[in-house]
């Protein structure tokens, strides 16, 4: 119990900041659950999809792979590409943790790096207290995972009208992540529009590509093009990646 007393403050702070994130997660996860149900996942599978995935875009891409009955290799590649940004966030967090922080903390903190949870973690003083992260995880992760399971179940019970409306919640979240940095950095805005156009063209001209493959190819192509034409300056902080 001495253990709890020592970390109670950080845990509580993290949990407090995790509440609004958890509420948002539940709603978006619900919409993800509807997509998961359409791909044939059960509620339990939806729960674990989210429990292990912890990423709206990555999980949505995973669902398209399952729906397409694509290969396991494609699942690995799609997961790698759609979650590549967490690699960068993990690098950023590694700079913020106490260099002496034991391995077990690194293993647990890394488990739930998401746009939002990373966003609140980097707003904390350095060195980052892992217990703050755990507090936010304890609130946000159950909301996320149970929201998906509820979406799989209740997606069946809701009228088609409501399901149709809720299915865009996920895309609304994607929009809310992309637009603020696009407003600040015109290159991001330009490439977001190019991505819309290229994705639309590919879906019409190359219908044999699955959604996941399309995502991989266009991401590699367009991000590579952007990095070649508009390399970011050396002083660009990793925090610039995060706007949520």
């Amino acid at each position: 119990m001495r253990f709890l007393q020592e970390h109670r403050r950080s845990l509580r702070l993290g949990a407090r900041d995790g509440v609004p994130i958890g509420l948002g997660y539940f709603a978006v996860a619900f919409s993800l659950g509807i997509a998961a149900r359409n791909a044939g996942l059960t509620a339990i599978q939806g729960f674990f999809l989210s429990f292990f995935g912890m990423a709206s875009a990555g999980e949505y891409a995973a669902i398209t792979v399952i729906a397409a009955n694509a290969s396991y290799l494609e699942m690995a590649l799609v997961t790698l590409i759609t979650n590549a940004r967490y690699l960068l966030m993990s690098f950023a967090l590694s700079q913020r943790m106490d260099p002496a922080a034991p391995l077990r903390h690194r293993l647990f903190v890394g488990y739930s790096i998401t746009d939002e949870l990373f966003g609140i973690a980097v707003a904390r003083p350095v060195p980052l207290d892992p217990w703050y992260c755990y507090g936010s995880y304890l609130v946000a992760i159950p909301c996320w995972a149970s929201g998906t399971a509820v979406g799989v179940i209740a997606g069946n019970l809701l009228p088609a009208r409501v399901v149709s409306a809720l299915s865009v919640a996920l895309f609304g979240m994607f929009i809310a992540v992309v637009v603020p940095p696009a407003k600040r950095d015109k290159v991001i805005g330009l490439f977001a529009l190019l991505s819309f156009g290229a994705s639309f063209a590919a879906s019409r001209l190359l219908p044999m590509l699955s959604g996941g493959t399309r995502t991989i190819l266009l991401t590699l192509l367009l991000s590579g093009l952007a990095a070649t034409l508009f390399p970011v300056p050396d002083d660009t902080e990793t925090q610039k990646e995060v706007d949520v």
Partner: protein
Amino acid sequence: MKHQIWLYLAVMAAVCYAIRVLPLTLLRKRIRNRFLRSFLYYVPYVTLSVMTFPSIIEATRSPVAGGAALGFGILLAWMGAGLFPVAASCCAVVFVLEWFLVSA
């Protein structure tokens, strides 16, 4: 051949966890390669944009409603609305428009 959903999930979980934990545990230095850093900087925005369109107009029963939700969402986010308000507003736009565009 029909693939196993649990195996799909296991593959996803393993890759996801590796991505998040390897840099944190193995590397403590900053990435120096400029192309690589720039590439990783653009990746999230390109990925999210590619996945949003045209999927958003295919997810709804009326493509017009999906398109309107996209436009309205961009406008709201541009004006500074957060994640949850934007997502909720997109749903509301589709719900209201489909009331007129789709029967029953």
